[in-house]
């Protein structure tokens, strides 16, 4: 391994450590009070002190996010295929989808609470509602951007619409689909945390709200860090999945730029 590639591999860790070190130093240097910005050591202490609560609530948030995300994948894939299949359906649904996507999902939470009460269900549904859109758009784009010449080649062979979808449309939509998962999982996470913060008595969002009420500032930040770690892990999982499933797209420079 060369020196450069080693430094590139180490860089993320070094930069992360540097950020926390600078944070710690700044808090001490400028005598920032702990109730304003706790130093990383205090946050680490909060992790130790409140580990059972953090662990339980993290798992809960992870669960609602994963469930909402799974729904979004299923629904988004299906709707994307339908929209990419037919111009009429595309034309009919497009304005509706834009309108729906324009609604800030936080505004939907009260309605979900009205229907389902507080707790896991609105969190799952908010995660779902906020994250299916990019999946739909990406799948439909992958289908809709088949080169017209290629379509002509196949049609001149007598290919049916289904043939073209199976042989070309779906394989070429896959990189778009897996690419959208990174965005979608991040959004799903945002959705479930928002919903937990407003309308739940479990989950990291709720934990942070309670910590705020009791003025446990290091615990609030511990919640933030827990969210960041979960977010990174989920994003990374999706990135790995994408790389494994659609390696050809990267190697061929497909759909870049």
């Amino acid at each position, binding site marked *: 391994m060369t020196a450069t590639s080693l430094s590139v591999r180490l860089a993320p860790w070094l930069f992360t450590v540097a950020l926390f070190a600078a944070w710690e130093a700044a808090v001490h240097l400028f005598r920032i009070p702990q109730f304003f910005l706790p130093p990383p050591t205090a946050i680490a202490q909060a992790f130790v002190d409140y580990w059972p609560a953090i662990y339980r609530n993290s798992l809960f948030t992870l669960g609602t996010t994963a469930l909402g995300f799974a729904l979004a994948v299923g629904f988004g894939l299906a709707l994307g295929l339908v929209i990419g299949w037919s111009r009429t359906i595309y034309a009919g649904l497009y304005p509706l989808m834009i309108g729906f996507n324009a609604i800030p999902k936080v505004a939907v939470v009260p309605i979900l609470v009205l229907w389902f009460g507080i707790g896991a269900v609105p969190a799952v549904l908010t995660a779902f509602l906020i994250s299916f859109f990019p999946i739909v758009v990406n799948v439909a784009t992958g289908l809709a951007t088949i080169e017209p010449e*290629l379509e002509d080649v196949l049609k001149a062979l007598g290919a049916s619409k289904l043939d073209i979808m199976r042989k070309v449309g779906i394989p070429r939509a896959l990189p778009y689909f897996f690419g959208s998962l990174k965005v979608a999982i991040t959004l799903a996470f945002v959705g479930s945390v928002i919903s937990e913060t407003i309308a739940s008595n479990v989950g990291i969002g709720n934990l942070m709200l309670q910590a705020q009420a009791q003025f446990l500032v290091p615990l609030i930040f511990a919640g933030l860090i827990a969210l960041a770690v979960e977010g990174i892990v989920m994003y990374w999982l999706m990135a790995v999945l994408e790389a494994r499933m659609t390696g050809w797209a990267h190697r061929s420079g497909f759909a870049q730029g």
Partner: protein
Amino acid sequence: MADLTAFVALEGVSHAYGGAGSTLAVDGLTIRVNRGEFAAVVGPSGCGKSTLMKLATGLQFPFAGTVAVAGEVVRKPVKIAGMAFQAPTLLPWRTTLENLLLPLEIVEPHRGRLRRHKADYVARAEALLASVGLGGFGGQYPWQLSGGMQQRASLCRALIHEPALLMLDEPFAALDAFTREELWCVIRDLHAVRGITVILVTHDLREAVFLADRVFVMSARPGRVLSERVIDLPRPRDLEATFTPHFQEIVHALRDQIVRARQ
């Protein structure tokens, strides 16, 4: 009375993409290509050459006139044509060999036979690759090939199901001069060996004269055939033939016609 006996016959064909009443792409276009003939179509940009290809293969339908291929009026996509375009449009997730097999997964009777006779078809595809100088490259992905090699593979894909009609729409336009001339020879030989009917759209008059039995000159949009010229150069033709005075004369004459067509 329309004469539909030619292998490919367009008789007084008018087409507008927006339907009758909108801007015409071609207007009163008549062109007849005989079985086994190599026809080239030249004309100003936007005059309807690609439209002609789509009409002849049943990808578009005219609002006036008749299109017939192999004695039958075209009402749906004809299934006896292979097509290749300026862009090779190979599928990047399939190897070159798998790309060649794509038409066989669609066209009957191959479609139903492919699974059981896979080895035969693979052998056929490999032989075809070898015949265009791509022997041994079947396992490579298209993006591992050069532009010229991709274009060769695209030609093979157009030929794998042994179509009676080969439609080429500026297939060499994106290639450098030397690669292009190499591919002229590839096409020339494929035509000579298989006796296939070829319609070639091109902007390159030397290409048209070198390859074709007959060159059709189209008018500016809306396109129709202004004139046709039989190329009487003896076959087999050599690239050397392109430097003879007679060859140059034909190219010049065609060039004058296109200049006039553009006005």
